[in-house]
């Protein structure tokens, strides 16, 4: 075996890490066992601890000795496991993201954790704990290069693409971000927590003060708001300090973090949705945040910014939108607003809300006799029209050239841009109340992860006929853009085949190869996993022109000898899952009988 081992420092590091987890349990156990074992426990405790530490060291040494990874021509192999051994081979084309993270201790030791994510997987495909930081960066580079070579079938394999910086956060931006990331929801959470934590004590303290309880409550409110503003600001600074976004080939990379550093990648060919997040504060300052959603996996998940990774945490609006247009060339269009009667609907809804509030307060006063100032709910009379207007104004939708745009939210406005060819299905809904106003909403579903956390592409409260048109337009454009993409891919493949034929077989007629390529390409590629292997093979000959001998085309996926051939056939099936049949540990059931 010629694999690479982890960094030796990972042994003591993992021993300490394990010890922190286990030793308190041992000591706890010893204290509880003391009455049973008597005085013996004082002698036994050090012995047990020594044994536990010894076992930990032995285990980690064995883990280290058994853990090996290797970059083979087609796959990234990991051999691991102390008791049950596991050999994992990840085809390069399936790798989506390679993330590196380092906490303070790891930074001091100059090691890093590398996580490799694949498409469709709900969890991390492979984790390397821990390798030298240099090695982690090298792996990130090499894996990306291998992935590109496997996918794109480039002319010069192994060529390094220049990395260029797209965005770097400035101190000024960071301050704006700290201020703008203030979230009222945090304040309300703190407040709820406070009111649950010590109501009795609080009430006593408040009652004992020489000022009006209203003043005390107001002061507490202000304090909580300031406190949570500070908290969210500090959190934002810690997370995004030193943020840098670069592009290398068809991949974006970011670095961020003050104490814990993250290095991650965002594959551009897997982008599902762009989301521009602009809360009220950001809009007032003229700033914007750009987040990118990729299929099946959002990089950097598990920390504060759940969902999708911010590609541009904060930038002037024009700048953020400009970077977004570099990633997906969506047109600069104005969005259409929902009809005016949607605004009346919101105003009526808010008025009803305030009326109910006032009614409840009045009932409470009537029943308990405590002054509740229920008539204060009349403040809703001027507020409701304003709130309704802004809610209406924040909404928008547009089926533009190549992309569908939707916008929602006044406090936290999000504009989402979805390329038509990423649309999964289109859902039109009409609630009982919407029917009365002849309104309907349309949701555009993609395979992105953000949708799980409530961030859908939704055009809300359209005119009923407009909603129907919008729904059908999106579905039609999806079909059109898919056909267009397939055509473009075929042309690219033909051009590539022609070039390769010229390069490799100068005596062979390249025009015949091009002809052959177009004929085969039209047969289409079956992208569905129930297609039997035998059905798949002829379709995979879309890469024709490679060899004039039709017999050689028979070698498709599953053949361990097929180097470029195999990865190409994976690309041709076009489905991430389809590549699972290529030496992957979880082979999908080809019949799809799940």
């Amino acid at each position, binding site marked *: 075996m010629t694999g690479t081992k982890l960094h030796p420092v990972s042994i003591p590091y993992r021993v300490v890490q394990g010890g922190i987890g286990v030793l308190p349990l041992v000591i706890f156990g010893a204290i509880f066992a003391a009455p049973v074992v008597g005085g013996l426990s004082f002698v036994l405790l050090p012995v047990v601890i020594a044994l536990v530490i010894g076992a930990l060291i032995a285990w980690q040494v064995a883990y280290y000795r058994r853990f090996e990874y290797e970059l083979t021509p087609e796959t990234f192999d990991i051999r691991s496991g102390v008791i049950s051994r596991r050999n994992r081979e990840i085809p390069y084309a399936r790798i989506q993201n390679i993330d590196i993270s380092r906490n303070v201790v790891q930074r001091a030791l100059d090691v890093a954790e590398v996580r490799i994510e694949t498409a469709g997987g709900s969890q991390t495909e492979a984790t390397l704990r821990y390798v030298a930081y240099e090695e982690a960066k090298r792996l990130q580079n090499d894996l990306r290069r291998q992935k590109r070579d496997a996918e794109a079938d480039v002319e010069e394999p192994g060529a390094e693409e220049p990395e260029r910086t797209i965005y770097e956060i400035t101190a000024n931006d960071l301050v704006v971000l700290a201020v703008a990331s203030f979230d009222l929801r945090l304040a309300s959470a703190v407040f709820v927590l406070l009111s649950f934590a010590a109501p009795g004590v609080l009430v006593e303290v408040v009652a004992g003060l020489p000022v009006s309880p209203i003043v005390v409550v107001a002061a507490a409110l202000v304090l909580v708001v300031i406190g949570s503003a500070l908290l969210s600001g500090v959190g934002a600074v810690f997370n995004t300090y030193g943020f840098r976004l670069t592009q290398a080939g068809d991949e974006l990379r970011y670095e961020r973090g003050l104490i814990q550093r993250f290095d991650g990648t965002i594959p551009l060919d897997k982008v599902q949705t762009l989301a521009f997040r602009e809360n009220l504060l950001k809009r007032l300052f003229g700033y914007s945040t750009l987040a990118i959603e990729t299929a099946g996996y959002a990089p950097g998940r598990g920390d504060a910014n759940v969902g999708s990774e911010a590609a541009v945490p904060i930038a002037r609006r024009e700048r953020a939108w400009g970077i977004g247009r570099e990633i997906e060339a969506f047109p600069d269009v104005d969005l259409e607003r929902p009809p005016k009667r949607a605004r009346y609907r919101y105003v009526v809804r808010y008025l009803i809300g305030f009326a109910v509030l006032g009614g409840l307060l009045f009932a409470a006063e009537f029943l308990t006799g405590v002054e509740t100032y229920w008539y204060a709910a009349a403040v809703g009379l001027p507020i409701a029209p304003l709130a309704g207007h802004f809610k209406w104004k924040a909404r928008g939708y547009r089926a533009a050239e190549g992309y569908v745009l939707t916008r929602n939210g006044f406090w936290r406005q999000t504009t989402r841009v979805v390329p038509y060819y990423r649309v999964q299905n289109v859902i039109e809904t009409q*609630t009982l109340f919407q029917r009365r106003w002849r309104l309907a909403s349309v949701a555009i579903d993609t395979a992105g992860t953000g949708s799980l956390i409530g961030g859908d592409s939704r055009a809300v409260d359209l005119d009923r006929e407009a909603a129907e048109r919008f729904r059908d337009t999106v579905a039609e454009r999806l079909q059109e853009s898919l056909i267009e993409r397939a055509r473009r891919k075929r042309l690219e493949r033909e051009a590539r085949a022609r070039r390769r034929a010229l390069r490799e077989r100068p005596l062979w007629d390249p025009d015949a190869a091009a002809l052959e390529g177009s004929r085969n390409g039209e047969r289409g590629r079956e992208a569905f996993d129930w297609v039997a292997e035998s059905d798949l093979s002829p379709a995979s000959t879309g890469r024709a022109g490679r060899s004039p001998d039709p017999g050689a085309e028979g070698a498709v996926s599953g053949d361990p000898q097929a180097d470029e051939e195999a990865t190409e056939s994976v690309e041709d099936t076009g489905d991430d899952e389809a590549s699972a049949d290529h030496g992957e540990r979880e082979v999908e059931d080809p019949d799809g009988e799940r």
Partner: protein
Amino acid sequence: MNSLHPRIRLVWIGQAAVSAAMFALVVGVVDFFTLEIGLLLSGGVFLALLVLFAIHSLLRYRVWRYEIRGDELYLERGVFTRVKTVVPFVRIQHVDARRSPLERLTGLASTVVYTAGSRGADVTVPGLTPTGADDLQARLKRLATEAEGDDAV
């Protein structure tokens, strides 16, 4: 536009009876320990709920429509919130034919269509005859395979 097999109403009313019975049971237990009104209460709750749910089932049947169009499967459903879903064949990941115990009793079956979407990831067409479900499955499968697929995601 196709509507569902009329017998699906029986399945839905059957399901309604089960959930109404569950509710009645809970009410009965609570009543036994607190109010002690007796079986009349649980029975009343059961009947009232059953009638409500049954009406809902009948309305649901009247609304439910599906259609296989040129490039997509189109569904219309929902009593209170009307939902119309467009599932392009290109996006279909796989298709299941399914039969629950109640469906087997009434001689019906459903077809479930899966996409990679995160919201409407699976779409069920209930109220088909077993052969109808198999046909729909085969037909969707063929249409999905024929559709020029680029990326499933």
